[in-house]
């Protein structure tokens, strides 16, 4: 009898040992992924299910199509066409119309903190070419007169911008693309997926093992480390930070690519990173930029007035503030603590 017990114990040990393998091996559906460079970033889309090659090919085509429509430097794109024919009513694709309309809507809601007509300023600072420079006050003031989202006219499938103006959808394009990818995946029966468009994260369902997705928020002062983890499902998690694209002058001062639409200079209003969590990628994308531009005081005020917005703010002095709703889905890391606004 003792021997049988011992034998059963051995079998149990063997079973435990085998089940100690990596969690990934317990996945009950097949993982498939694509990665590509588009929209000036590195993208990776991971899906779980059976026979997912076709749906991933559709996703890839959609990304390339949208990139070709929105890319401000592509002579074939809708945006290039609009910018190079100021004053003319230019016929564009329905996705371009949708995104411009959405951007104008959020610009109005945020009182111009987001403005897709900021492009002439961004270009002057060299963020489009990598040839960075600090423009003088006269140049900035002169260019600022062309920055006004109210002057972008959309009539049916045509868009018209004033002379000397230019638009860029860089602050909203990835969010919009994430939403389109999510729709394609869901329409094709995908129930679990992770969309990473250069740090713009969108999740579908939960992980194949039933757990919520763990999306970390980067530490803006050390992007290899994180300040917290968010446990989410079917959510977009999008951050705007001063670490994404910037240059430094001879004194080490950092100039980031997020422009303050009221000054024509990189936004320096107390925040170094804003993460927005929500159902819509395009709204999270637009709001993360808008709240960053608004700065600490106005962004907190805005979130208090719009209780449906879930956000994490990191200030210059590394104070972390979160909105009430995400208290239960956040797990702080590395000793950081948060304050609920």
């Amino acid at each position, binding site marked *: 009898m003792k*021997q049988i017990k*011992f*034998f059963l114990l*051995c*079998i149990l*040990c*063997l079973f435990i*040992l*085998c089940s*100690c*393998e*990596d969690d990934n091996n317990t996945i009950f559906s097949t993982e498939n992924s*694509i*990665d*590509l*460079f588009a929209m*000036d*970033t*590195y993208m990776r889309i991971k899906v779980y299910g059976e026979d997912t090659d076709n749906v991933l090919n559709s996703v890839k085509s959609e990304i390339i199509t949208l990139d070709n429509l929105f890319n401000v430097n592509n002579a074939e794109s809708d945006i290039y066409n609009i910018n190079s024919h100021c004053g003319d009513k230019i016929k564009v694709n329905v996705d371009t119309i949708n995104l411009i309309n959405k951007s104008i809507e959020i610009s109005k809601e945020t009182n111009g903190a987001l403005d897709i007509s900021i492009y002439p300023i961004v270009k002057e600072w060299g963020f489009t070419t*990598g040839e960075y420079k600090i423009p003088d006050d006269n140049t900035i003031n002169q260019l600022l007169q062309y920055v006004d989202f109210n002057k972008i006219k959309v009539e049916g499938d045509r868009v018209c911008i004033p002379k000397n103006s230019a638009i860029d959808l860089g602050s909203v394009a990835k969010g919009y693309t994430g939403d389109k990818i999510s729709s394609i995946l869901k329409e094709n029966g995908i129930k679990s997926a*992770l969309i*990473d468009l250069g*740090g*713009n*994260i969108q999740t579908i369902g939960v*992980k194949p093992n039933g757990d919520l*997705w*763990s*999306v*970390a*928020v*980067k530490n803006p002062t050390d992007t*290899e480390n*994180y300040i917290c*983890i968010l446990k989410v499902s079917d959510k977009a*998690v*999008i*951050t705007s930070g001063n670490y994404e694209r910037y240059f430094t002058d001879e004194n080490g001062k950092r100039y980031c690519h997020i422009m303050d639409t009221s000054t024509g200079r990189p936004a320096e209003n107390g925040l170094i990173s804003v*993460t927005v969590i929500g159902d819509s990628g395009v709204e999270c994308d637009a709001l993360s930029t808008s709240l960053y531009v608004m700065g600490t005081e106005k962004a907190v005020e805005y979130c208090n007035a719009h209780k449906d917005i879930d956000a994490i703010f990191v200030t210059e002095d590394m104070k972390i503030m979160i909105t009430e709703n995400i208290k239960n889905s956040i797990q702080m890391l590395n000793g950081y603590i948060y304050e609920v606004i």
Partner: protein
Amino acid sequence: MKKNKKKYIFYICLIAVIIVCVICIIIQSISGQVGKQAVVKVDGETVCIIDLNKNQTVYINGSNNIKLEIICENNSIYVNHSDCPDKICEQKGKISSTNQNIICLPAKTVIEIIGNESSRGDIDAAA
């Protein structure tokens, strides 16, 4: 006699179970060691896999005719030189943990360390 036979079968089974257990442990430990590799992808296509256990210099032809000199030493990897205009890949410095990557956007090149043990724990993505 019957009792001895039972005993004999029991010991055979016991030895078999022990052997299987030992094999499992060996396989697991070996696969853990093999983990330190870096995959280099250009425009989504894998162009080479670099063994991090071996000190070496690898030259990659990225997109847009951009060449990268990648150095692997002491189980870490970095871009020593790139013809790209922004040099962000060079500035990234050395990486050595699983799932860490170096991205050169102009060259559409990604160098990513793969392996079983993730430095990011159970983190699925970072925003």
